[in-house]
């Protein structure tokens, strides 16, 4: 395995609070030297990171429906070193053999790592428990409902209890599906456009039930993709009494609102729906307050056909791995959170949730690293997107920082030419 020395970078590690100029030495897939001038190390490769940042590789808690190989490489180009994949794949990730297959595909891609989440129930059907211990042994660090809430509360309770038996956190989708039969946030924009709306209650009705069941199960539960101010309030109150609860937000909910869809632009057809400006502000505040700890891309690349046609006939979801880092840094520019807190939400916070060793710059930690040039602006457009999904809501946006080098497991998997 290659020995790499990254020299003279600004090392930023939210986990330890480290923020100083120095070197990082990498050997055998691990960080073997950190900070100051690393001496006594003979590298095969040197990377000069003068004027650049060296940060832990991003851990993206939710990235879906990808062609694994292409998206793992696109993720690496975007500074993401770990893609966490929900189990609603085809076939569903509910048996070790499917997990093995997914990991095999991911390893062959030589891009970001892919961490599979196991299905809480067989086939994501919400009726019988999956073989969670076997899934954990096969490499799943957590269990998930795969975007489809378990509607039977008793099954949900048993699934959470059983997952917790093996110290597996459960990732749930806060949703009441009977209220969610729409295409846009229920409000003035949907009414104007004549589109069926998804009320905030679709989130809070689901979340409220899941909070109650999580408490009964005494389990570690994480809620994926909060979208509303009401949802934040509910979670915040619940966390006062149950610290085993946490949540994430999709990056686009921190920047966009339902009004972005006002010309029926299908790139803004997303689940949960983009909500209004009050919700967006509440999500930003929740991030600043630590009520929401994790940001994910909720990456859902679609081919052009799937996003063509009248709004309601298009596939929901946004292509988001290319812009995750740029947008997270924009939260710092917008003075929502500090640089350290922003980076924590996509590195150490998801790592702790899943019990991963990565997500930090530490002696002995996996060498999942990104070198970023903070002053290298780029425009998001069809040419600069690496994902196969052209359905980015951020086409036309400019970002200030560019990924120069990405290391996964000590290997240089991405390098942007000067």
């Amino acid at each position: 395995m290659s020995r790499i020395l990254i020299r003279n970078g600004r090392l930023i590690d939210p986990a330890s609070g480290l923020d100083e100029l120095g070197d990082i030495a990498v050997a055998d897939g691990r960080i073997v030297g950190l900070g100051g001038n690393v001496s006594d190390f003979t590298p095969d490769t040197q990377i000069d990171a003068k004027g650049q940042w060296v940060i832990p590789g991003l851990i993206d808690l939710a990235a879906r429906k990808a062609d694994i190989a292409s998206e793992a490489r696109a993720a690496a180009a975007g500074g993401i070193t770990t893609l966490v994949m929900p189990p609603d794949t085809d076939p569903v990730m509910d048996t070790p053999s499917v997990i093995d297959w997914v990991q095999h595909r991911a390893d062959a891609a030589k891009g970001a790592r892919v961490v599979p989440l196991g299905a809480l129930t067989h086939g994501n059907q919400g009726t019988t428990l999956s073989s969670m211990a076997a899934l954990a042994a096969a490499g799943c660090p957590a269990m998930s409902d795969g975007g489809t809430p378990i509607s039977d509360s008793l099954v949900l309770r048993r699934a959470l209890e059983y997952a917790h038996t093996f110290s597996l956190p459960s990732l749930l989708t806060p949703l009441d599906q009977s209220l969610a039969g729409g295409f846009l946030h229920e409000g003035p924009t949907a009414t104007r456009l004549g589109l069926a709306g998804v009320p905030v209650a679709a989130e809070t009705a689901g979340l409220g039930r899941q909070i109650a069941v999580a408490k009964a199960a005494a389990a570690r539960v994480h809620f994926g993709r909060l979208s509303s101010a009401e949802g934040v309030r509910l979670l915040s109150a619940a966390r006062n009494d149950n610290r085993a609860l946490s949540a994430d937000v999709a990056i686009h909910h921190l920047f966009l609102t339902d009004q972005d869809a006002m010309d029926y632009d299908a790139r803004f057809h997303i689940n949960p729906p983009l909500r209004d400006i009050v919700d967006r502000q509440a999500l930003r505040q929740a991030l600043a307050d630590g009520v929401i700890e994790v940001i994910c891309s909720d990456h859902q690349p679609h081919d052009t056909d799937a996003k063509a046609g009248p709004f309601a006939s298009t596939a929901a979801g946004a292509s988001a791995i290319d812009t995750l880092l740029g947008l997270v840094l924009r939260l710092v520019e917008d003075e929502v959170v500090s640089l350290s807190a922003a980076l924590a939400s996509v590195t150490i916070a998801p790592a702790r949730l899943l019990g991963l060793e990565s997500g930090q710059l530490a002696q002995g930690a996996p060498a999942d690293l990104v070198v970023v040039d903070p002053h290298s602006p780029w425009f998001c457009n069809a040419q600069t997107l690496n994902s196969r999904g052209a359905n980015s809501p951020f086409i036309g946006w400019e970002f200030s920082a560019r990924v120069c080098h990405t290391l996964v497991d000590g290997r240089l998997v991405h390098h942007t030419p000067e």
Partner: protein
Amino acid sequence: MSVQLNDDGELQHFLTTEGLEPQLLTRILDTAESFSGVIGKSVKTVPLLRGRTVINLFFESSTRTRTTFELAAKRLSADVLNVGVDTTTTKGESLLDMLHNLQAMQADMFVIRHAQSGAAEYFARHVNPGVAVLNAGDGWHAHPTQAMLDAFTIRQHKGAFEPLRIAIVGDIRHSRVARSQIHAFNGLGAGEIRVVAPNTLLPADVDSLGVQVFNDLSAGLRDVDVVIALRLQRERMQGALLPSEAEFFRHYGLTEARLQTAHPEAIVMHPGPINRGVEIDSALADGPRSVILDQVTNGIAVRMAVMTMVLGVAPDNTRATS
């Protein structure tokens, strides 16, 4: 929403009544008025669209609307092609393929009805320059020619819009007609627009469209000059939205007796087709207050007006009067 206007602020498509300037709305009505004479004369055609091809592309079945569009096009001497489309072919790419194929037949205008909101705008964004799209109804979103023919009928009977109180009664939630009426009447300066419905038939934040909201019919009809009943789709009458037709009629059905609180000379309208005894009592629909058949007749002149305006061939005299 500016896709329907060209750089000079003139209509190049007609997709929605929302956001149109009062002068433009008035010009549509004035142009329609100049054509309404044509209908009465023995020679019923003018050559304004001679040599042009209009394609009626209907993804939802419709007799009345399609027929009046067809008549309007024929009275303008256009060639008309009616294309009915099986609604199972609604996937994006095949929609576009179909559009491109039809464009290859040198169509100048598409009249489109589709079950999904935004369909007409989607087509308008994908047609070749110079080809016009008229929205003949898209989902719950808009039915702008219906709204304009309603405005025309109201002007015919009531004159200026400013002093008018207009009540729209029934299924507002699923109604493209109601949305287009609200935008058109507001644009034309109507004094007050009310919607009257049970809460299950009102969309969220309906007041944001610029209306007063009433649950009670007699309160909603008090002193109104115009009452518009909306069609209630039969499939919506059972189940979660409404308990029964009978209960709806009891509380929201229009009858002569319920119009007692309205202005004595209030007119009654309905975009058709009527469910007699559900939205409106037969005696009222066929009685002296009813202008429902005027609406149908006026539909032809209004559609002629819009067809000439989007192709830039509207008679000049009507532009001068605006």
